[in-house]
């Protein structure tokens, strides 16, 4: 009995590892692109130009205020009506990027706004241009506020990536669904899914906690 249980586990494991790889690919690419755009939008959102902050605010509110599953459906099923036909994998990455950028934008904007105005003034006075000011003075300081919630957000986004299973991307959650209808060991299947998500998330949770502790002690130096 036990033996066959483990045999089954060994049997399905390769399939799950493939799913894990896909989850890492979708979440990883989505997070990288989402982070790039999140920083760009976040920095713009922290400016005092209404014509810049307002449209970004609308975008963020729309994305944060609607279920991720609806966003994916729109990208995968509705965009083709407008002439943009995407396969499941690129559609999933696009959806993850749009979602990630919205949340990360808010975190980054908060961090940039938390930097003392005097830092901007000192950097401006010394003749640095806007890119130099951001790169050498503002962003390094904002990172202290940004990093802990950013890593926490990564964990949430990785878990949200399970939603892309609905458009047929063969990631961890979908692998779980497909397996559970074939074999009787339902608990084992979803425990395995859970354990594999946890294996990605937990190091990030540890990292986030550590950074939070360090930030509160003011020890982090970038």
């Amino acid at each position, binding site marked *: 009995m036990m033996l066959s249980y483990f045999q089954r586990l060994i049997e399905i494991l390769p399939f799950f590892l493939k799913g894990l790889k896909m989850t890492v690919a979708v979440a990883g690419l989505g997070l990288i692109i989402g982070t790039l755009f999140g920083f760009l939008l976040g920095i713009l959102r922290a400016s005092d130009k209404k014509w810049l902050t307002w449209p970004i605010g609308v975008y963020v509110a729309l994305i944060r205020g609607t279920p991720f599953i609806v966003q994916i459906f729109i990208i995968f099923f509705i965009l083709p009506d407008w002439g943009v036909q995407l396969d499941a994998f690129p559609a999933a990455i696009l959806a993850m990027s749009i979602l990630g950028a919205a949340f990360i934008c808010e975190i980054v904007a908060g961090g940039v706004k938390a930097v003392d105005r*005097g830092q901007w*003034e000192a950097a401006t006075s010394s003749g640095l241009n806007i890119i130099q000011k951001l790169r050498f003075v503002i962003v390094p300081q904002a990172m202290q506020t940004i990093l802990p919630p950013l890593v926490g957000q990564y964990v949430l986004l990785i878990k949200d990536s399970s939603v892309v299973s609905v458009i047929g991307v063969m990631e961890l959650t979908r692998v779980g669904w497909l397996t559970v209808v074939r074999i009787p060991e339902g608990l084992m299947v979803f425990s395995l899914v859970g354990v594999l998500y946890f294996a990605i998330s937990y190091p990030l949770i540890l990292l986030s906690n550590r950074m939070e502790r360090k930030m509160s002690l003011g020890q982090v130096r970038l």
Partner: protein
Amino acid sequence: MIKFEGVHKWFGKLHVLNDINLHVTSGEVVVICGPSGSGKSTLIRCVNRLEKFQKGKLWVDDVPLHDHGVNLTQLRAEISFVFQQFHLYPHMTALQNVILAPVNVRKMNKAEAADLGRETLTRVDMADKFDSYPAQLSGGQQQRVAIARGLAMSPKIMLFDEPTSALDPEMIGEVLDVMVQLADEGMTMCVVTHEMGFARQVAHRVIFMDEGELVETGQPDSFFDNPQTERAAQFISKILTH
């Protein structure tokens, strides 16, 4: 070097600079004083365009700031500003603070800039603190690093906004000493301060502001001992009694 001609500035409805006319020549040290809220900070912040003004003309080093299309970063590289609250970059060492602009604005190479940085920090008597972070320095030391940061750009003009007001009394002297030394070397300086001793020692002119107006200007000794306007007299009696 700096020439205000009929400059007006409003913050919303608040008229913070009211018809400012002022000419500061090269090498001149001008002390600006006046009650809190009278527009002193705003006045000197116009000089490096940290603040805009709505009306009038202002030339700085022959650059017309009232014109559109002035290259502001280029202008600011020639003018150093020292803040009341220092505003050192907290994530950088003293030396890194000092060489950031020389490396990135003046495009000096790193080794050359580091030499310049150490030399400049030595000038403000901070030779033993090159690698200290701002949080590890006293207020007086931080302000001297901030002055070195300005000096390292070899500016044509240095602006000081109450550079000693945030300092414990025992640290004021060390900062003023550095400023006196700069004045003696011929630096063009506009200094917002109520340090009368400093004004008497090095200022060529004292300017008194009240409610956005430039009310009185005079030689330091005659201004402090024999003010011409009622408002200035009242102000001087106040700073004398506390």
